[in-house]
């Protein structure tokens, strides 16, 4: 079965619609003992910042019902180390490698984009718009259409011909409006959703379970929110949408495609089993066959809303 997906014609072609989600797959190298990276649709790498970043205090992660609550703070060695030491070791000629950009102001986003635009091994860039904006009191860029558009415009101007993915979260009044603003600002693709916020409490110690109190929720707990966001966003933009949130199996991939996604990211399922993403890619044709799906594009955004039949 042909599972190929063209996200940006001639510039971002995937051999299947399954990518790794930022923050859950490292650079990809960490998983090469568990599967063939070149079988994936794409690798979205861990969050990158301009300078090395040591991240947030411990404890940083805890298990919650149906998911993960985490506050890592984009611990990474900076974009130069990624470009010089990590990217050359990735199979970028066999699978699209897409760095995830993090910054606290528009200039830093632009600078990051300019550095990565020079790299042949970078297929596209994903802009994490859940980052706190220093000029707006730390509120995320994606909180409103104006700051979203500014960040995307800045990245786009510096990105050359690399496609730009705007990753949106629910920390906004209306994700559809923000998606439209990102599209108008030049985003080639929308990705949703970034982790919604939450917290967890230990009744015995009477402390929060995370050192920074508030964290992001990921895993199956957020899949219904992610599906709804994809469905809403896909109905108002003309550019492709990538669904992120709680994908654990091939059936989940198809749910997002029915809701309107062109592709999906597998996130914390890779924590629970390092072969999860490879298994999903492997199972997808079989599940399609079972469900009599011959062509993904035929079912994309084709949710049947008539319950009388």
């Amino acid at each position: 079965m042909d599972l190929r997906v063209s996200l940006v014609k001639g510039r971002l072609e995937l051999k299947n619609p399954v990518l790794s989600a930022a923050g859950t797959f490292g650079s990809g190298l960490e998983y090469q003992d568990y599967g063939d990276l070149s079988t994936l649709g794409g690798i979205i790498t861990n969050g990158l910042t301009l300078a090395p970043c040591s991240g947030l205090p411990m404890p940083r992660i805890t298990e919650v019902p149906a998911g993960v609550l985490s506050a890592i703070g984009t611990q990474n060695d900076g974009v130069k180390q990624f470009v010089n030491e990590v990217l050359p070791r990735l199979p970028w000629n066999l699978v699209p490698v897409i760095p995830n950009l993090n910054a606290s102001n528009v200039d830093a986003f632009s600078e990051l984009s300019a550095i990565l635009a020079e790299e042949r091994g970078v297929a596209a860039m994903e802009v994490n718009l859940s980052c706190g904006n220093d000029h707006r009191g730390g509120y995320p860029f994606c909180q409103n259409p104006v700051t979203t558009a500014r960040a995307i415009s800045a990245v786009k101007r510096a990105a050359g011909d690399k496609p730009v993915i705007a990753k949106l979260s629910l920390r906004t009044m209306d994700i559809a409006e923000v998606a439209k603003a990102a599209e108008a600002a030049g985003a080639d693709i929308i990705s949703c959703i970034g982790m919604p916020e939450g917290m967890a409490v230990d009744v015995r110690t009477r402390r929060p379970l995370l050192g920074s109190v508030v964290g992001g929720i990921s895993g199956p707990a957020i899949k219904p929110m992610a599906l709804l966001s994809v469905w809403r966003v896909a109905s108002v933009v003309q550019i492709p949408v990538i669904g992120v949130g709680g994908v654990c199996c091939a059936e989940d991939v198809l749910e997002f495609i029915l809701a309107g996604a062109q592709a999906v990211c597998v996130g914390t399922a890779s924590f629970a089993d390092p072969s999860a993403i490879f298994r999903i890619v492997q199972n997808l044709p079989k599940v399609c066959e079972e469900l009599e799906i011959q062509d993904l594009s035929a079912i994309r955004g084709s949710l049947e809303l008539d319950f009388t039949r």
Partner: protein
Amino acid sequence: MISPVRSELTVSDNVPFGHPSAGSSGGYRFYALTLERPEWKDWRPGQFIMMRPAGAADSPQWARPFSICRVTSQGLVLFFRVAAPAWERFARLKSGDKVVVWGPLGTSFDVRPDTPTLLLARGIGIAPFAGYADKHPDPASLFLLFGHTYPSSNYPTDAMASRMELENLRDHTPEELEYFHTVMREKMITYRQRGGICLACGPISFLYRVWKDAVELGLPTQLSLEQRMACGTGVCLGCVTVTSQHWADPAHAGLPVQTCTSGPVFWASDIDLDARIPGGKG
């Protein structure tokens, strides 16, 4: 470097150890779980595996880290404590059940045949030292000081005592714990004078004490850190510890590194358990 392998293994046996806990909850706390032998090329004492029950591939429940207790010709032996409700699914495993395992993971304890070696363990931290004795050419030369909150019958102390010199001390009350710490420090001083090394495994409060003493005494000491881990592969960045200025890679000195991949076994001089993560985005 030993490459980790993901395998689906069959449970051979899961034997409760010691006595059930008192009260209405009543279950056993400690188990010796034997799995069929994985097809690893090799493993080293101090390394660990991640494990979850199979057949729950779509479940978001995390795997859990287990110290490798022993690898025999028959199988992989793990010794664990049901420390929280999430561990009860491992206590329920029975012969014939399948589990998903990835490993061996992380760094290992030094084996120095001609160096006096002091082993320090508290509680479930005794687990890796069974495998350590297997891999050591002269286990009879090892000395294990073992502190335990629960009665010693809950731990494999008899099997260990038959292979190495072992002193076990109950550390249930504050007075018992203080005595354990006193004996521990005396042993560390003795091994420092003999030009020995020390290896320690157990809860973080215990390891902190060992770390403090090791740094102060200048006794070369390795600590096997236990942190909350989601993945075991180094990507979740949830299990970090802060390195000291002695860390081999100067670019990461004083910065957080993953316990699952840079550890779990660290030289005490390489880490700073008093440090806070500097924080702040670049």
